[in-house]
């Protein structure tokens, strides 16, 4: 049994005001409602919010934030709660602001290739709507019910990351309610309210709201780039016996920039589900698998991409690496190429065997450090009886990429949860020391980041936060400052 969330103190006066803003059906202090928001998949200890509020309009959000700012009550914005870093766990109680009712797709511009969405729009919902225009977005390996907006503003990654970069790089405009209740816009929609096509060439003020873990405001509308769906898919699958050979192949292939997604996973992550606790890889099984998605508009284009890929494979073989063209495990391949996916998104892939818990050292790490970090992670994780289920993905070029280990654990058992937490934090320290940076970080990670941070960076962070959120009400504590 995990630790029961601590009871909090609610004020009838505040509830009354919240009710007057959003209506009686949308504001509550009922314990059972608050309880359902007190935990997520991660190792972060459960904590109860004091109030839960569902907003349906921007004006309601403004009023809620004005009230919270005046009363100095923390506010935690929430869409689906599917992150694995405890980002929506209310560290200091306060108002849990559930935005899932704001789920309108406001606009899809099939000519200019952008869409404008509200925060509650899910990946599944947007995928369905975009498909009518034969358009797509970089769907992550999260649940189809997870929020497009929350993923994007938290630097989430998607299935087009090798081609277009992170989902946060796809943001074209934003409407945001500041912690003090003012409504602001950044990007082209700030100049012309109908124009949501670009954050450039204006100063990139969208950076004030991306990667801040909900600490600087509530994004109420988001413009994102969307892309045509090329009809011809080809997935290149290879395996290697060691991480160095796999890195060499990925580096080589990424130079040609022909992939939408160029990813490798260790044997443990290629299993559906990830083995829990650790079990050794069978003798003779490759340690690494890679899938690389390419999408082409014509068969000829596809053939050209295949030609490049075959050339890379030949080059790698000539180097004497252990690379083999191989079959990727079928269900795992489907889970990663047919996105959004219920297989990966439901965490069938991740924690079906472990039981309820999943967390990670999820990082952006220089690609040339993947191999040494993986080797250390492997030792650490096996030492904790956990599978080294590691993924490496190239982001738009070869400079850096995602390096992460998905770590399932039995959340019903506090010892097993703590074991996973310790292992993950140890892994993170290794990665930080190699120049990696964690994304969507739990507080434990924030603390480790800040220990290493340049004092000027931390001071700037504090100043910006103070400027936007003078009373530190927005998702307080998450940044570890």
């Amino acid at each position, binding site marked *: 049994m995990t630790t029961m969330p601590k009871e909090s103190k609610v004020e009838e006066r505040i509830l009354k005001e919240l009710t007057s803003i959003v209506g009686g*059906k*949308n504001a*509550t202090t*009922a314990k059972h*409602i608050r*309880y359902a928001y007190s935990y997520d998949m991660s190792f972060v200890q459960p904590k109860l919010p004091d109030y839960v509020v569902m907003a349906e309009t921007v004006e309601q959000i403004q009023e809620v934030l004005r009230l919270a700012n005046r009363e100095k009550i923390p506010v935690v914005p929430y869409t689906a709660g599917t992150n694995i870093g405890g980002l929506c766990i209310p560290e200091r109680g306060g108002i849990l602001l559930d935005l899932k009712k704001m789920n309108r797709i406001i606009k899809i511009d099939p000519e200019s290739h952008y869409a404008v969405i509200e925060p509650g729009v899910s990946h599944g919902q947007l995928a369905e709507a975009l498909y009518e225009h034969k358009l797509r977005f970089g769907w992550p390996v999260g649940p189809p*019910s997870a929020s497009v907006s929350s993923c994007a503003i938290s630097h989430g990654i998607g299935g087009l990351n090798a081609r277009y970069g992170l989902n946060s790089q796809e943001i074209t405009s934003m409407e945001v309610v500041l912690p003090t209740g003012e409504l602001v816009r950044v990007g082209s929609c700030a100049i012309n309210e109908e124009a949501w096509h670009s954050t450039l060439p204006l100063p990139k003020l969208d950076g004030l709201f991306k990667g801040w873990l909900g600490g600087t405001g509530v994004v109420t509308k988001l413009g994102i780039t969307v892309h045509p769906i090329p009809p011809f898919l080809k997935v290149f699958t290879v395996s290697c016996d060691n991480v160095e050979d796999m890195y060499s192949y990925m580096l080589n292939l990424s130079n040609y920039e022909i992939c939408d997604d160029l990813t490798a996973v260790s044997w443990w992550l290629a299993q559906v589900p990830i083995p829990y606790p650790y079990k050794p890889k069978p003798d003779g099984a490759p340690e690494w698998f890679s899938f690389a998605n390419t999408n082409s508009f014509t068969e000829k284009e596809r053939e050209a991409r295949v030609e490049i890929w075959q050339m890379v494979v030949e080059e790698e073989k000539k180097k004497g690496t252990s690379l083999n063209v191989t079959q990727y495990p079928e269900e795992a391949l489907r889970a990663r190429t047919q996105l959004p996916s219920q297989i990966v998104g439901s965490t069938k892939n991740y924690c079906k065997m472990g039981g309820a818990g999943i967390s990670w050292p999820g990082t952006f790490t220089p690609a040339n450090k993947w191999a040494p970090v993986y080797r250390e992670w492997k030792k650490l994780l096996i030492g904790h009886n956990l599978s080294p289920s590691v993924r490496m993905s190239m982001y738009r070029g070869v400079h850096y990429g995602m390096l992460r280990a998905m770590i399932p654990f*039995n959340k*019903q058992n506090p010892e097993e949860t703590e074991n996973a937490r310790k292992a993950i934090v140890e892994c993170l320290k290794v990665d930080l020391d190699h120049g990696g940076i964690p994304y969507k970080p739990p507080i434990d990670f924030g603390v480790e980041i800040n220990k290493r941070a340049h004092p000027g960076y931390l001071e700037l962070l504090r100043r910006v936060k103070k400027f936007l959120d003078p009373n530190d009400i927005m998702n307080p504590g998450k940044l570890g400052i």
Partner: protein
Amino acid sequence: MEWKISSLKDLEHYFWRCTACGTCRSAYTFGPPPFAKPICPAGHEFGFEGFYSSKGKAAFARGICDGTLTFDDPEFVDAIYRCTICAGCQSQCQVDYKPHIPEVIEAMRREAVLAGAGPMPLQKNLIQSMKNYNNPYQGPRRLRTEWIRPFKKEKRPIKDINKEPAPILFYVGCTGAFNLTARAVPTATANIFQKLGLDFGILGEEEICCGSTAMRLGDAEEFKRVATRYLEMFKMLHEERGVNTIITSCAGCYRAIKKDYILSSEYDKMMNGIEVIHTAEYVNRLFQQGKLKFEKELPWTVTYHDPCHTGRHLNRFVVDHDGSQLWPGAFVDRDESKCLYEQPRKVLQAIPGLKLVEMERIRSNSFCCGGGGGVMTGYGDWAVRNASLRIAEGMETGAEKMVSICPFCHYNLNEGAKRIGSPMNVHDLTELIDRVLPDKA
């Protein structure tokens, strides 16, 4: 007779397998084209996470087990009854919690009943009615056979199986017998059976509630009372009246006998030699065997609503209980072969002149009518609001009628249509069959 009905504690391992990922919140398929639609009536209506699908219910169950949530909070008790137990979320879940989701919801209700807190006041009336009248409608015994009066009048008597033997027992069900709108269902069923020349009988005034409602509301003792009586009665009918087939047109009764009664240690012994079958399945079987033909035309455009009770509630889940396949308690596979998805559609498609057009949410992704799990009794307004959502979805297909095979859905959906002023009528499949079957089939 012993019953293996799980306590919440028995299921604790399983609701701790819920990852809180929220995949259960919407029906989704990759396609292409992708398909993503709301699936949870309670989540759609109430919005807060706790109300949403199996994720929310796992939270409630965990809260009960860790002592945070208690039944002395009436708002909490109310919350666990605000669910249609439609299992739409179960269709989406991919982890080991999946096979046990409706069971966890019902186990919470059983805890509430044991604590003296459940069910909700209006539902308590229903349970009391079961105790007083042996049916949930406070219907006097003699009213149960009101629907057969026209048969008597037209000199087409229906056998009372207590007095005359017959190989087929037509199990009517309380909704068909007592609900005026739903009486069309047993009437049409009996018409069909007579046209087919079947030798069948009914229990008449001896019929009581199957116990489905009590089970859904968490009153295990009341369920056991009626189910025990029925298992003994079925055995007697088989041995003394020659009954070897029980046919019902009621989805709830069908589900109860097929899925709830098997929780009895004596089920196999008591039901030995008896097949339980839904009318839609029976008619389709005859049709596939070439034993009946529909001759009359029915130039209707219809859409078909899959009831939860005859659909996904009949899923069979393969669970690795001893860990020999995957690990102890692992969900291994789902077997949909017992779900009545194809049979009613095949019957509809065989009707001359009829055009079947499908809604978006069908089969395992069917959107509940909103009446199940005690919601129609406990939260009538919400049940009808939800039904009107389903009617609206039906209207989008261009169909003029909606067809189903559950008297409960039949009633609730018709109420939903009235609420939004929809011209769409909801018919039971038996009504359509009755119209197109020749008098001497």
